[in-house]
């Protein structure tokens, strides 16, 4: 510690008594593996989002009242557009650095969601959800749901043509809820679409409510990890359930984190210069009754849009309650997906009758249920997401859109099942093979032990 830093530390420590706590946390051991940094990448993205978001909030106007644009962009000179869209135009074109921050914010949101998905995948595949970490896992699922909502609400705030279409579809999905649908839709959206209430409410959700809950839950999520310590990969000669082998927080893990923060910032800034995330000047504001071709939500909602396209034309009324394709594709099926994610740890616990606290990770290929479930669910989501790009695929390949859709309808149902069965079978065979090897090894060992005992006696 340098003398200056020691002086500063002592000033604070003598008033707060930080030394034991600092000693405890500064020397905490973190296990090695690059995949353990995924969660940290998500947290750093969140920080970048909060910082850039705060800047954007100073300029954004959360209203759909018509306002005249008086900025430098010729295309909109003197035109009357919704205030939200006008503020975006102003920020992008008339505020120096505005467009960079907008792109940084959007790029960071993409990275946030992508790394959260990868992180969740890592947790699922390696079994970091096992006891005692089920609670943390559930917390993670809740956070994941929140960030999906945050992303949707965030890009809807721009109120361009695509955003307005997305809000309309969300409203229609709310309407599709049985019995309470219309009332819930009116409560959430402030009445019959479109109202002037949607954007202000989305703004409050996006800037205040969801970030606050998310930051709180992230704190809780991290606190759990601090308390329970990190899991780790098996290593020969080390009892991973009783010990953590790795690098201490200071200096090694801190060095990694510091590098990560700066490197991520640099990557995102480079992306913001090269890739026009969420530039919207050409597409125009949302006008009721208008829509642009090639209408999709952002990539993390592709799986929902894909389901909306694929679920066939179903609509029937039973006892005065209407069930339609939108309800099934927009609410029931996603509910099943999230339900499956939530239930899986407990399912695995039940099926394999697991006991005790697990702190060591497993290879998913050694656990047939997990391999099948993981590959099956993930591939299903991938196919559903690909189905959302059906119109672009149709244009690129030359196949009629109708054919492309049927291709996806069939593959999304068949392929995940086939893949799941194949990998489960592979996993079972792999285990059986290893059992034979270890049994052979053990019989060899017991012979040696028997020999040693005999020699001793």
């Amino acid at each position, binding site marked *: 510690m340098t003398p200056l830093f020691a002086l500063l530390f002592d000033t604070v420590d003598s008033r707060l008594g930080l030394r034991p706590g600092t000693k405890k946390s500064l*020397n905490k051991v973190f296990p090695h593996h690059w995949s353990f940094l995924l969660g940290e990448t998500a947290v750093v993205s969140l920080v970048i989002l909060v910082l850039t978001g705060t800047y954007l909030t100073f300029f954004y106007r959360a209203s759909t009242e018509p306002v005249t644009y008086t900025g430098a962009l010729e295309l909109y000179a003197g035109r009357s557009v919704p205030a939200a869209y006008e503020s975006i135009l102003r920020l992008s074109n008339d505020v120096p650095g505005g467009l960079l921050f907008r792109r940084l914010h959007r790029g960071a949101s993409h990275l946030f969601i992508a790394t959260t998905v990868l992180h969740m995948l890592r947790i699922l595949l390696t079994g970091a959800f096992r006891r005692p970490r089920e609670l943390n896992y559930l917390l993670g699922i809740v956070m994941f749901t929140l960030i999906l909502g945050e992303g949707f609400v965030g890009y809807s705030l721009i109120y361009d043509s695509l955003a307005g279409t997305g809000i309309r579809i969300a409203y229609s999905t709310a309407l599709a809820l049985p019995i309470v649908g219309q009332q819930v839709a*009116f409560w959430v959206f402030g009445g019959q679409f479109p109202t002037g209430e949607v954007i202000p409410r989305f703004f409050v959700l996006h800037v205040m409510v969801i970030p606050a809950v998310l930051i709180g839950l992230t704190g809780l999520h991290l606190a759990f990890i601090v308390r329970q310590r990190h899991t780790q990969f098996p290593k020969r000669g080390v009892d991973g359930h009783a010990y953590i082998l790795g690098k201490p927080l200071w200096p090694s893990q801190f060095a990694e984190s510091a590098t990560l923060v700066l490197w991520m910032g*640099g990557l995102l800034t480079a992306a913001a210069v090269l890739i026009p995330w969420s530039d919207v000047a050409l597409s125009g504001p949302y006008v009721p009754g208008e829509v642009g071709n090639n209408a999709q939500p952002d990539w993390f909602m592709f799986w929902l849009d894909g389901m909306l396209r694929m679920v066939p*034309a179903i609509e029937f009324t039973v006892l005065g309650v209407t069930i339609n394709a939108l309800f099934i594709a927009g609410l029931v099926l996603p509910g099943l997906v999230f339900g499956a994610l939530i239930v899986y740890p407990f399912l695995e616990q039940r099926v394999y009758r697991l006991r005790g606290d697990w702190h060591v990770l497993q290879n998913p290929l050694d656990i047939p249920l997990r391999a099948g479930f993981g590959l099956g669910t993930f591939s299903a989501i991938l196919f559903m997401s690909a189905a959302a790009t059906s119109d672009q695929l149709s244009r690129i390949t030359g196949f009629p859109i109708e054919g492309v859709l049927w291709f996806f309808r069939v593959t999304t149902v068949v392929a995940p099942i086939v893949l799941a069965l194949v990998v489960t079978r592979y996993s079972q065979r792999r285990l059986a093979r290893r059992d034979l090897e270890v049994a052979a090894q053990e019989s060899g060992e017991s012979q040696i032990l028997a020999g040693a005992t005999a020699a001793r006696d």
Partner: protein
Amino acid sequence: MSTTRGDAPNVRVGTPARAQGPAGEIEILTEEIPPPSQINDAIVIGLSIAAGICGLAFGVVLTLGGPLPLYGGALALGLLSLAYAVRRYFTDRFPEVEAIEARLQFTDPELPEPETVAEVRAVGRRPVLRWALIGSATTLGVGLLAPISTLGPRAGNQLGSTAWRRGTRVVSTDGEPIRPEDIAPGGVLYVWPEGAVNNEFSSTILVRLATAPEEPTNFDWVVDDRVAAYSRVCTHAGCPVNLYREQDEALFCPCHQSTFDVVRGCIPTFGPAARALPQLPLDTDDEGYLVATDDFADQVGPARG
């Protein structure tokens, strides 16, 4: 199988383990001290200077109103250089360490039972007191949800009607009334009720068919045997069904690709829409302008649950 041979510490699984030594005590297994390296020093210094210059450049160019690629590029370069400099600094100045720390065990049979955690315990009383409190707190909590009902209007039959009424003129987006002759053959027009332009729920499309319409089109509502009007709110998820294929005489929704056959009353022929687009009862008034004779007869847009 799992072994504890070799140089690993002596601990068994299954026994309630205590951390070896006070918490935060770690045992350093290996320590590798980096050799002094001039190259490393040069890199750190060089990159730090570069990062500083880039940072300053970012500030200056941004303030002076320079182009985005310039100040954005400067910021990106600065951050990336600093990242690498930080990494090199740490690898140079600190040893690479492999450490080991004991975990805490939470399922310890020697821990006190949950009921005995608090020092002061309740003196036995009738449980009905407790339940009374819990019951009323729950009811109060549920009551506190009531303000949610103020977030929007009461659900009534708002979705059962649009702004079209008997005698409402059909107007374009500019507000101009329309004569049947104004539509080119095979053409479409995006129209609204007079006085309700841009009312999303009432958005309508006017089509001049090239072929004669067939069942289940309502022929009373077709003008000049060819001009028909349909709601253009998609009955699947509400996107505007604006795309018209002239030769196929089909309306196509760009969101989820529902296709409607205009000759046959806009019944859905492909895609997830299950209901036909409602037809607007159409007629001409004394001056020859198109008017509606009633509101849509069927549900407009997506169904409510």
